[in-house]
């Protein structure tokens, strides 16, 4: 970390954002594009005010956002309690890895929509199938990052601990886990991104609320202003969630970059 505040990078970031907004204003002000193709910032703002005051199709904006975040957080919680321990174990024990790897390698590259119909058939149209889809989307990146994190640990650490008389479990808990944490968090960040991108797919079938559903339903009716609004809100929440994880990471892995 160099000096904070005024850096050329920061200026460039801000300039990019401002430029995009100016281009948006400029393009829509020319009137060359219809509201369906590029809605003006004004109508997007109006739809934001309208939806936050009157809601969209029976739910307020906060309910839509809340529903989506609830799905996301439950699925994310499930990923953390399953993928992290399984991933760390796989990295540590080649037999566990031999069992889990084929399953994960197989489903990981599959597009979620390809198997979503099967999940719906198995688990119904309620929350179950949506959570399962989000869970599967988040599981693989965390698992893989955990395995990689353990494999990257310098063998000296493990030998060192062994020489000092640590048993397998002590090594696992006191050497492996702390050393792999940086990679675990990288996996967690990736997983959150992937889950977020899967959210719209998860809310495609029989949802009646949620940000993904809102965007899909608005696009059914060519309401580009609401689609833009939804996408912008999802983008901002995505950044905030990512920042939150980075914040937690800094608290837990405070030694990052100093090993």
């Amino acid at each position, binding site marked *: 970390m160099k000096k904070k505040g005024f850096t050329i990078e920061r200026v460039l970031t801000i300039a990019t954002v401002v430029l995009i907004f100016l281009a948006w204003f400029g393009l829509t002000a020319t009137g060359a594009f219809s509201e369906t193709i590029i809605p003006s910032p004004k109508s997007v703002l109006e739809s934001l005010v309208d939806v936050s005051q009157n809601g969209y199709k029976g739910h307020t904006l906060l309910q839509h956002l809340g529903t989506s975040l609830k799905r996301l957080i439950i699925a994310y919680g499930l990923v953390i309690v399953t993928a992290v321990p399984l991933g760390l174990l796989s990295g540590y024990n080649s037999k566990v890895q031999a069992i889990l790897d084929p399953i994960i390698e197989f489903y990981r590259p599959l597009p979620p929509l390809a198997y979503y119909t099967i999940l719906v058939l198995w688990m119904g149209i309620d929350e179950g199938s949506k959570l399962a889809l989000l869970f599967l989307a988040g599981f693989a990146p965390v698992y893989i990052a955990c395995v990689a994190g353990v494999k990257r640990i310098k063998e000296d650490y493990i030998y060192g601990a062994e020489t000092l008389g640590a048993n397998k479990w002590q090594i696992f808990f006191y050497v492996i886990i702390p050393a792999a944490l940086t990679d675990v968090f990288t996996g967690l960040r990736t997983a959150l991104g992937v889950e977020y991108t899967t959210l719209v797919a998860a809310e495609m*079938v029989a949802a009646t609320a949620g940000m993904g559903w809102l965007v899909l339903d608005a696009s059914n009716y*060519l309401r580009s202003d609401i689609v833009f609004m939804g996408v912008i809100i999802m983008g901002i929440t995505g950044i905030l969630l990512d920042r939150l994880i980075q914040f937690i990471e800094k608290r837990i892995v405070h030694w990052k970059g100093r090993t």
Partner: protein
Amino acid sequence: MKQNFRKFSALFLVLVLAVLSFAACSGGKNKDDNSVTIGTLDLVNGDLIAQYEDWYAKELGVDVKIIRFDSGKDINSAIASGGIDIGQEGTSPAALAIANDIDVEVFWVADVIGSAETLVAKKDSGIKTIKDLKGKKVATPFASTAHYSLLNALKQNGVAETDVELLDLQPDDIFATWQRNDIDAAYVWYPVLDNLLADGVVVTDSAQLAEQGVITADVNVVRRAYAEAHPEVVQKFVELQLRANDIINKQPDIAAQDISKKLEIEEADAAKQLKSFSYLDAAQQIEQLDNVFAQVLKDTADFLVEQKSIKSAPDLETFQSKVTSEFVKAASK
């Protein structure tokens, strides 16, 4: 620092050029471009016969590209972006397109929907009339003609929408959830409709609703810019549709054969589906396009406003200016 600045300005220039060229590409085709891109939903009407007999490529006189879409919503997006020139869609998406100021003209009524779209309830659900739908789970693809029919059926029978649990499901998902008993009823079309009828009962269908004034149909739309540049292609297109409708109405066996081969279904199924629509000849087309369809589209758009799905609907004159019988008239001379 200076060098840095130069690097950045170069990068910026590249970005701007990239965006501009991207915008130029998506800006639609040239006027003198000698081709037509047709968007189809593979609905059971003359379009399928024309496709199976390869009339488009042989007789339109320009390079033909046919793209299959899954819903009228996608056809609308494709037309708005200039990706297709002629498209087929239901009256609901067509009304949406006009209400959203997408520059299209409705120039052909491909079919009028009869029992092809039906509200089916599970046999053991106890649903016999529309009033029985209260408190039940009913699925339909939102923004479709079936959705429009379902909402109108509820309204006409005094059932509030909030009393029914409406679910937005695509036909395939409707079949899946039907098998799991997750839904009690569905308003849907073939081929899924056939599967549901095996253990379902008919509550109402679009033929009955049409008698009460709720008309749904599939229509062809053309980008106005394309129609102005290539009126002869659109006219020829209509000629082919007229020829196909003639076969459907006068030689239904041949029509069923063609459609069964195109869709890879049983001939009997194709024949049954053909009977669940009605197909208009030239005189009926002109009568309907001139006097009925602007109002049908206006009613549909007004209903969508009532549903708060769209902000506002244009007046009847706007719809009249977007529905034209000129191509049918020219083609049937």
